[in-house]
């Protein structure tokens, strides 16, 4: 099994979630994060004080999928999350050694 981490633009969340589902991924976990990269944050100005925000709001999606499903999922996410503009985000893939469904105790792929 692999852990797919996708960092995307917030307003793409629903589209990407649907893409995951279409790609056969039945569950995922989302966290609100702040990203630093090529895309710069907007500058806040108030009463003359000027401040360049270093971080831009992003969404981090984490989904553990079967080895077989990885390629398809990655493609799907890429398609759904892309706008062609800077700051679209990244996809990372890590190896997962074990998975357990707490409710049933099932392990491995059947736990997903």
């Amino acid at each position, binding site marked *: 099994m692999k852990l797919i981490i996708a960092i995307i633009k917030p307003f793409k969340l629903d589209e990407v979630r649907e893409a995951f589902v279409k790609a056969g991924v039945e569950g995922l976990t989302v966290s609100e994060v702040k990203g630093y990269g090529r895309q710069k944050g907007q500058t*806040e*100005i*108030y*009463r*003359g*004080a000027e*401040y360049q*925000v270093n971080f831009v709001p992003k969404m981090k999606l984490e989904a553990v999928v079967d080895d077989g499903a990885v390629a398809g999922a990655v493609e799907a996410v890429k398609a759904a999350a892309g706008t062609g503009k800077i700051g679209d985000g990244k996809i990372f893939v890590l190896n997962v050694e074990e998975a357990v469904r707490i409710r049933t105790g099932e392990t491995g792929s059947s736990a997903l």
Partner: protein
Amino acid sequence: MKLTSFKGLITKRLIAKGLSGLMLAAVLVGGGLMAAPSAHAQDTAPAASSAPADSTEAALPASSAPAAEAAGTPAPAMLPHQAALTLDTGGAAWILTSTALVLLMTIPGLALFYGGMVRKKNVIATVAQSFAITALVTVVWMVCTYSLAFGFNASSALQPYIGSFDAFFLNHVRVDTAYTAAKGLPEMLWITYQMTFAIITPALIAGAFAERMKFSTLLVFTTLWSIFVYAPICHWVWGGGFLSTAGVLDFAGGTVVHINAGIAGLVCALVLGKRKGYGSENMAPHNLVYTMIGASLLWVGWFGFNAGSEWAADGIASAAMLNTQVATAGAALSWMIVEWVERKKPGMLGLASGAVAGLVAITPAAGFVNPQGALIIGLIAGAGCYGSAVWLKKIFNYDDSLDAFGVHGIGGIIGALLTGVLADASINSLGAGASVMKQAMGIGVTIVWSGVATFIILMICKYTVGLRVSEEGEVEGLDAALHGEAMH
């Protein structure tokens, strides 16, 4: 009945006699208290209506029960600043309301206006400042500052500079006494109404040292400042002191409250120094909804501040309310426009700041100018305060965190000067005596006294309780460091 405006009396030359007579009476009081009332009643006419008039009025159903009773028994001795109450129920109703409105300005008004502008980790500490100052100044006022500000000093040599010690703990204050300048209002109402002004002034200063002063220091500073800065200046302008006799016009507190607080704020900002991370960290307001609520309550409450300062419900009070509304709107718009041009976007913070700038600037002029004059004052104040809060602060590079000086100091000065220019005698006969020179004199005196005294008080605090929280405390946030509390 129409209240004879005290400010009015003393700006009118011919009354100077009456006043010196009043001082004389005050001295007599020292000698024989029983003799005082009548003497006072005669000498201060028309400030105080003559004794017989009093008694007859007291007989009217309109007067309050205690007064009526008093009328029967020989009236007990009164302090020189007191007169018998001849109740104006309509006026009393409006001032009771105004008192509530001005308190609303500080809590929760100012608390939220400031609380929204700080970083989230300091919001509880910031609102706690306004709340604690409200409680503290109330007690200090009752203990001594009311007497120092509005009592008439028995010594005619001292009266121009400081009030009396006779009304400490509100001694000699009764349900049937009134303040000589507002005989239609019970003195207890006058005390409470004026108290709300004494409360908001130090609360305004807090904007200058927000996010870094110790809470214990705040309490010590506020106590000393109320006694040695607010009380005397209030006495000079409104308590029959030398600025009022000199004809300085300040309808509702441009000098006493705003210039005074603004200058004190500037001194605090300079002495305490900048917040850690100033310039590098993002210190943008964390909750502009709180700031909007605060600005709105300041706006609404200011009706009690300005229209209430007529001490009656009449045409001049109405003019003061209309002028307040027009000037505030004008200033909000002019700040917005300047900001729109310079910053490319008009902000909620700008609208709120502009409105407050207008409220500050119209304060000394509210009951003296006509609506057109009010609009002019507002338009100038909005742009002027934008300049001081944005450009001036950058140039001189000090950290007036929430622009206590930028908005209240500058706004107050603009308003005080323009009062001298735009006062309209057809609105208020006192306007006839208006002069820019007199106004400038009042401003100058206030700047010097407030600046010097505030500096000395800060030094006392520095070498006793200390001024700033620890650096870790500032990083962790004042909510946790000072109060052990947090927003969840």
